[in-house]
């Protein structure tokens, strides 16, 4: 993406979607269904796993450089991995919703997170929603049952995930 100054706008993903096609214009601003949101969450999960893997390799490299003679790859237990993944996921979701109103998965699926006024989340809302999604991720399944396509986090925090294909 190019900005008015001619520099790359690195805050947005590099995939450029020119315009909303006529078939999708009727859905813009409406709450998304379960499939779209699960797919977006899957993409975010891949991003988080990749980030944790990169962090693991970075820690291994530091250990190798620190003591090459006694180096061996660290073997963290499941609790440590889940904790690290949860922290990364929390930071990733908070920053993404606060800065762009969407994560990478939301962007690929054309979704955006808004508050009860239809505006981007503020700091408190973004942090609270991230924490709730990390602690209780299964709450997304309530979207399929809800009459308003809301998850548990949406019901608690009065937020919405809507179709928003525009930039």
């Amino acid at each position, binding site marked *: 993406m190019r900005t008015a100054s001619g520099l790359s706008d690195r805050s947005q993903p590099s995939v450029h979607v020119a315009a909303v096609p006529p078939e999708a214009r*009727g859905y*813009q*601003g*409406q709450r998304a269904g379960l*499939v779209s949101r699960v797919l977006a969450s899957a993409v975010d999960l891949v991003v988080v796993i990749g980030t944790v893997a990169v962090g693991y390799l970075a820690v291994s490299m530091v250990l190798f450089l620190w003591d090459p003679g006694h180096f061996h790859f660290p073997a963290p237990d499941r609790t440590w991995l889940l904790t690290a993944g949860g922290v990364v996921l929390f930071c990733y979701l908070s920053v993404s919703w606060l800065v762009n109103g969407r994560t990478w998965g939301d962007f690929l699926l054309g979704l955006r997170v808004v508050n009860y006024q239809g505006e981007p989340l503020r700091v408190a809302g973004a942090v609270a929603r991230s924490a709730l999604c990390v602690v209780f991720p299964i709450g997304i399944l309530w979207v399929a*049952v809800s*009459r308003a396509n809301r998850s548990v986090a949406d019901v608690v925090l009065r937020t*919405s995930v809507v179709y928003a294909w525009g930039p």
Partner: protein
Amino acid sequence: MQENSENPRPWPRQGPRAGQARRPRARAQQAAEGALAAADVAIGIGDGAVGFARSVLRLGRPLLASLTSPLTAAARTAAPLADRAGQAWPQPWLRQAAARGRQDREALTSAVAGIALARVPGLTTAVLNQLDLTAVVAERMDINAVAARIDVDAIARRVDVIAILDRTDPDALTRYLVEELDLPAIIQSSTGSIMSDAVHDVRMQSISADERLSRAVDAMLLRRRPRRRAAPGAAGPTSATGTGNGTVRVIP
């Protein structure tokens, strides 16, 4: 030359030097008048000679007829037989005169032809310099008719393509094409377009799946009212194409 370029007029310049230029002109006029008088005298003498020749011819016609009768008779008999022309003359002195005349004629002919041929290139060049050949060809020649007669296939068969390729630099040609075509920009543009189409397809497929899953769940829960999907602050549907609660047509 410098004076002529400064004074392009054909008449002499008026001024102090006009008298000096008038003297040679008077001399030239006097010489021309003398030459005319000499020519008049020559013409008068020639006229008198012609009159005298006429008188002699009138008086000596019988004698001349007796001299020319053998010549005309021999010419009549020798005309069809050009190879034996020299043998047909009854008088030897006439035969010798004819031979000398033939030699002189042939020598004169060859000399004239040589002179003419020697002048041909110069004359041709001078004539061509006076002509606008391009205009003449464009006006008087049917170039399309000429071009239609050209056998392009024959010309193409004679072209040595391998020799032409040997004279080219493939590396320079490749670099030139890459620089002119801006292949990185084309690849980036095409890749971006493919990604955009793929993203649109995935989004439309996911919306369609959302609709189907919602209808299935609502059917299982025996719901009859449609879902309230409109979010706060949403502008709502902007196009009649997408219904919001019906089947989504996927972009082909």
